[in-house]
């Protein structure tokens, strides 16, 4: 069972929840940029939520399925066509053998995820299939996907005729039920908690950070999003001794540019950390394209905790309703 990459797209990688337990060796966690969408895609497919998926950055990817499969596509950043017909996101899809999937441009978002029922058949490196291209870890030989790559998967179904509640299109079938996740990403105000070095910044910079808009610059990748919109940062800062950093931390360069660390964040760093993003806002942030305006809003540690609890409850609900839908397949 496999599909073939006809066109790689801008940056397509295999990701799961990431690599844990190796940061003491300087190995980043990696994993999906928008873990909520990756997990949703897996649950819809009946997989364990942390199974490996394909992460597509924006559009331009083209795949060819050599065998039939149940799949689902979640996230944002592209419109997907299966055999030239628009395919809905957040649903269970059945694709026949010899189907072609194309990722076409869309107006919003950045990362979409394709999960396959049964999961990818990829060897784990350090307990994870996540690709970290700078050190060539995980994925297929540590690289982003490229044309003519063959991606093996584990499922072994032959037809959708046995499933109920599916709608047939010319090119594929899709489930009548769907699980939109958009409600969790409509807000472009990003909640933050004061960072360890917050007090090293001037009152002016603190105020500017909390009230003025910042724009996602064109310097964005899986390691970090650089924002345009400068902090003055004029006061002489003491030289910091490097210590651990992680996803969500907003560090400020010596030139005053904020960088938000993302999934491939280095394990240690020495820039002053003005803030950290509330983890429930990270998926929306990851889905922000260059040019998108972001405003930061300060919240307390308690509020952040409440947001996390609320998200977890919501996720548990989604999980159990997906289970009950899947039981009726």
């Amino acid at each position, binding site marked *: 069972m496999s599909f073939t990459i006809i066109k790689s797209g801008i940056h397509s990688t295999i990701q799961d929840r990431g690599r*844990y*337990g190796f940061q003491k060796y300087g190995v980043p966690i990696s994993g999906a940029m928008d873990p909520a969408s990756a997990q949703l895609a897996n649950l819809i497919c009946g997989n364990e939520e942390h199974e490996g998926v394909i992460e597509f950055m924006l559009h331009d990817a083209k795949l060819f399925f050599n065998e039939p499969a149940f799949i689902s596509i979640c996230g944002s950043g592209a419109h997907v066509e299966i055999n030239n017909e628009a395919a809905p996101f957040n649903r269970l899809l059945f694709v026949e053998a010899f189907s072609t999937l194309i990722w076409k441009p869309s107006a919003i978002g950045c990362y979409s995820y394709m999960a396959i029922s049964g999961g990818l058949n990829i060897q784990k490196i350090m307990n994870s299939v996540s690709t970290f291209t700078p050190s060539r870890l995980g994925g297929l030989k540590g690289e982003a996907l490229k044309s003519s790559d063959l991606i093996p998967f584990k499922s072994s179904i032959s037809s959708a005729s046995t499933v109920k509640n599916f709608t047939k299109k010319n090119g594929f079938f899709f489930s009548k039920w769907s699980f939109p996740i958009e409600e969790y990403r409509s807000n472009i105000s990003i909640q933050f908690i004061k960072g360890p070095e917050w007090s090293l910044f001037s009152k002016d910079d603190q105020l500017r950070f909390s009230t003025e808009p910042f724009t996602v610059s064109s310097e964005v990748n899986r390691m970090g999003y650089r924002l345009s919109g400068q902090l003055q940062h004029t006061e002489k800062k003491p030289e910091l*001794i490097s210590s651990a950093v*992680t996803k969500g931390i907003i560090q400020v360069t010596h030139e005053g540019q904020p960088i938000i660390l993302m999934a491939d964040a280095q394990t240690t760093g020495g820039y002053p950390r003005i803030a950290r993003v509330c983890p429930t806002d990270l998926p929306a942030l990851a889905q922000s394209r260059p040019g998108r305006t972001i405003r930061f809003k300060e919240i307390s540690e308690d509020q952040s905790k409440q947001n996390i609890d609320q998200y977890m409850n919501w996720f548990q609900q989604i999980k159990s309703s997906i289970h009950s839908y899947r039981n009726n397949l």
Partner: protein
Amino acid sequence: MQLPKLYSIAYNAVTVEFSQEINVETNRRVMDLHRAFEKNPFKEYIESVPAFNSLTIYSSASLSIETCKTYIEPYIENKVDMDNHVECKLHTIPVCYDPTWGFDQEFVCTTLQLPIEKIIQLHTSTVYDVFMIGFVPGFPYLGILPKELEIPRKQKPSLRIPAGSVAIAGKQTGIYPTEIPGGWHVIGRTPIQIFDPNKNPCCTFEPGDQIQFEPISLSSFNAYT
């Protein structure tokens, strides 16, 4: 002893910061706490990340500063026994100091006003602590360098430093695990692959281990591969 300072870097990660300086004693406090957690983890413990003067503890659930305080309390009261540092391994790492590999030797000799023989002798006669592994996977920060070898980083980083390069900067020395850009001065190269993701563990050294370099000739370097 000064009590460490605790702060959060994520909802599930707390950094325990010891004194505000880079030295062997502070780093050993970090490593003692790191080993204590590895040996005796709390239920939600994922990992801890040692740095020069701090240890960051990651949990699979929320981790508050107060909770973390209760986890570290049993360990931080004890004084570090500087003479009884038994749990670390001492690794002898062969290094070829031939100018073929030590690209920056000329600059280093001129800046430090020392002949290369003296630099090699000083670099190989010291036992270094692995203060932390970071920057890129597998890069060990080693210290403390003999005072005579202290040299500022390059003004402009080199775009390509080959894997295995042994370099110095500031009070530290390090080994480049893979080919990457870097700002340290390369004085030699080890034939040993110090980072291999297919091996368990992936690194030749653990943070907190010790390293001593052993000079080898160009011909024995070539015989390694």
